[in-house]
């Protein structure tokens, strides 16, 4: 459906940057999108006047108006379902799900419509939209608020899944997601929302979807993680280096489609891999990565691949969440296991 609306091309101040946290970078990304494309809309619970429970949409309704930054009723299927209608009819919704643990009521809409409408109409209709959801444990949230169920969406052809771990990537992936002709789920590590700041370009830029990033070069073992687990992996690598183990670190950034090359290239060099995620072991994305290594790098492997993950239990109440989450110590043990196999 052709859209008759004007898409402005704002002149970019190339050199300017701001020193932002992840959540501020997300906010800045949405601001940039709202400024440069009149068809972009933001929908969600408490995202307007309140600016979002994490302040991710702070100031946006004030600046862009209540018909572009919209407080919806409390109904996730309704948010995603109406976004589908908006998207096939020319708008580009960014739908916020307040916490990933509350996305399940919308699962049917995402599974049977968001991800399938292009296929079902051979491209006649499509739904360029972004679903944003903070995910993960570690900030003493009430129960159900801390799930990390990315594989419910990576096992869903038709949608892409990204998960930034830095402010720069957060803004760049968000803009790339909105510019992608297909729906993208962006998982935001709420534990890292305000953990660090970095310089983020003021204008519009993208981080390519489907590309991981080598965060650190190393020779003995490849550590693969994303989102909030990057911090854990980085700490573990530091400790391992002290024990004389050289770690290469990959930030996956996109969870579907996975960057197989970066994984294969690294594992073929190191011969060893430790995958770290906070989701449960069984059914976790670690299994897909094990398969990718099996498929691409079988003959290079010098030890079984280790997965250091959440246990096969529901994410617990916060008194035990630190026991659920992978820790640098557990990752170090995994590293030692593969190195001393």
């Amino acid at each position: 459906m052709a859209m008759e609306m004007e898409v402005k091309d704002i002149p970019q101040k190339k050199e300017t940057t701001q020193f932002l946290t992840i959540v501020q970078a997300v906010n800045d990304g949405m601001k940039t999108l709202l400024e440069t494309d009149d068809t972009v809309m933001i929908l969600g619970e408490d995202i307007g006047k309140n600016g979002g429970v994490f302040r991710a949409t702070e100031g946006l309704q004030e600046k862009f108006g209540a018909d572009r930054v919209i407080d919806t009723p409390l109904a996730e299927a309704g948010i995603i379902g109406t976004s589908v209608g908006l998207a096939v009819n020319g708008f580009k919704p960014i739908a916020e799900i307040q916490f990933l643990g509350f996305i399940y009521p919308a699962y049917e809409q995402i599974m049977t419509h968001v991800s399938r409408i292009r296929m079902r109409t051979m491209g006649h209709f499509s739904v360029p939209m972004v679903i944003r959801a903070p995910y993960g444990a570690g900030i003493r949230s009430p129960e159900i608020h801390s799930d990390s169920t990315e594989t419910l969406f990576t096992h869903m052809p038709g949608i892409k899944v990204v998960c930034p771990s830095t402010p720069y990537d957060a803004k760049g992936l968000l803009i790339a997601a909105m510019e992608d002709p297909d729906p993208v789920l962006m998982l935001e590590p709420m534990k890292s929302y305000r953990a660090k700041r970095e310089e983020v370009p003021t204008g519009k830029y993208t981080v390519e979807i489907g590309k991981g990033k080598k965060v650190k070069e190393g020779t003995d073992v490849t550590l693969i993680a994303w989102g909030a687990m990057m911090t854990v992996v980085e700490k573990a690598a530091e400790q391992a280096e002290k024990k004389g183990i050289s770690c290469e670190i990959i930030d996956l950034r996109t969870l579907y489609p996975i960057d197989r090359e970066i994984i294969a290239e690294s594992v073929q060099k190191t011969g060893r891999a430790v995958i770290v995620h906070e989701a449960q072991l069984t059914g976790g994305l670690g299994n897909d990565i094990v398969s990718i290594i099996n498929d691409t790098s079988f003959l290079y492997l010098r030890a079984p691949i280790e997965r250091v993950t959440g246990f096969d239990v529901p994410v617990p109440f916060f008194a035990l969440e630190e026991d659920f989450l992978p820790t640098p110590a557990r990752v170090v043990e995994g590293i030692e296991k593969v190195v001393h196999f």
Partner: protein
Amino acid sequence: MNTQYPIKRIIDDEGNLIDASYQDQLNEQLVKDLYYHMHRIRTFDRKAISLQRQGRLGTYAPFEGQEASQVGSALALNADDWMFPTYRDHGAKLTFGADMMKTYLYWNGRVEGCVPPEGKKIFPPAVPIATQLPHAAGAAWAEKRKGTKNAAIAYFGDGATSEGDFHEGLNFASVFQVPVVFFNQNNRYAISVPIEKQMNSETIAQKAVAYGIPGVRIDGNDCFSVYFEVKKALEHARNGNGPTLLEAVTWRTGAHTTADDPTKYRPEDQGKGIVEPLLRMERFMKNNGYWDEAWLAEIDEKIKAEVEAAVEAMESYPKANVEDLFDHVYANMPLELADQKESYLAHLRRG
């Protein structure tokens, strides 16, 4: 509630005009248009059943008995409106301008059947029940934001009212006051489950109260009443007054689908007293001197030819292309998927 939501009728079972205020509007052109389309979709429908029986079509969901609801509502639309049908509303789709050959293709397991003619805003049939209601609200919302006078119509059955998406769709539509008409065909069964087991409310129309929107009950076998009430609801929507819930009380003459056996769950005499919509219209036409055997023969022949041609085109349609399995999942195919496609095509080439 039955008394608060009386069933609106323009003609009665004998085809007598009972609401004289419509006298002038029931002109020959309109009457023949409505009859023509009902006859057309019935011909389509019966052919589909027969094709299915011969193994020339997959499982099929017939709509016989609901022609007045589907034609009356579809003809009430403007060309630029949006339609969100279910798997049972191909009658409405055809009337609104869907391609007949492609509609048959859909029932032959072909994705091509979901692609509407260019410019026709017909969404693929909703299979997961009630999921289309929020879509219709969203598409209507987009029209409102664009400032057009276009509206959307969402079709759904009595059973669909039980799903959460029914509720969320109506709530969003009413909160944002978007131009959408929720058009319920209450054919009194959801597969085998009668409406009394589906809900404790006497009517579907009364559910509008929950959303502070108008709810109207229509005789869904009276094509005039459907046509004019849908038109009214659409006008209401176009004028910025928000959504309406319409309940068209009708009757599914046949089975839920060709895989279903209604004698297992429907009392034999249920529905016996119901005058099906074409007969009712025929009576009206006869009562009013619009009935014309020659015209009927002429349209019948024309429609039969159209249907035969569509079936033939469907059956000689190029067979499904395996590349289509891969090509429409993403605008830009991910590498992993491209590899899967490549290796499967290679596998096929090896035979």
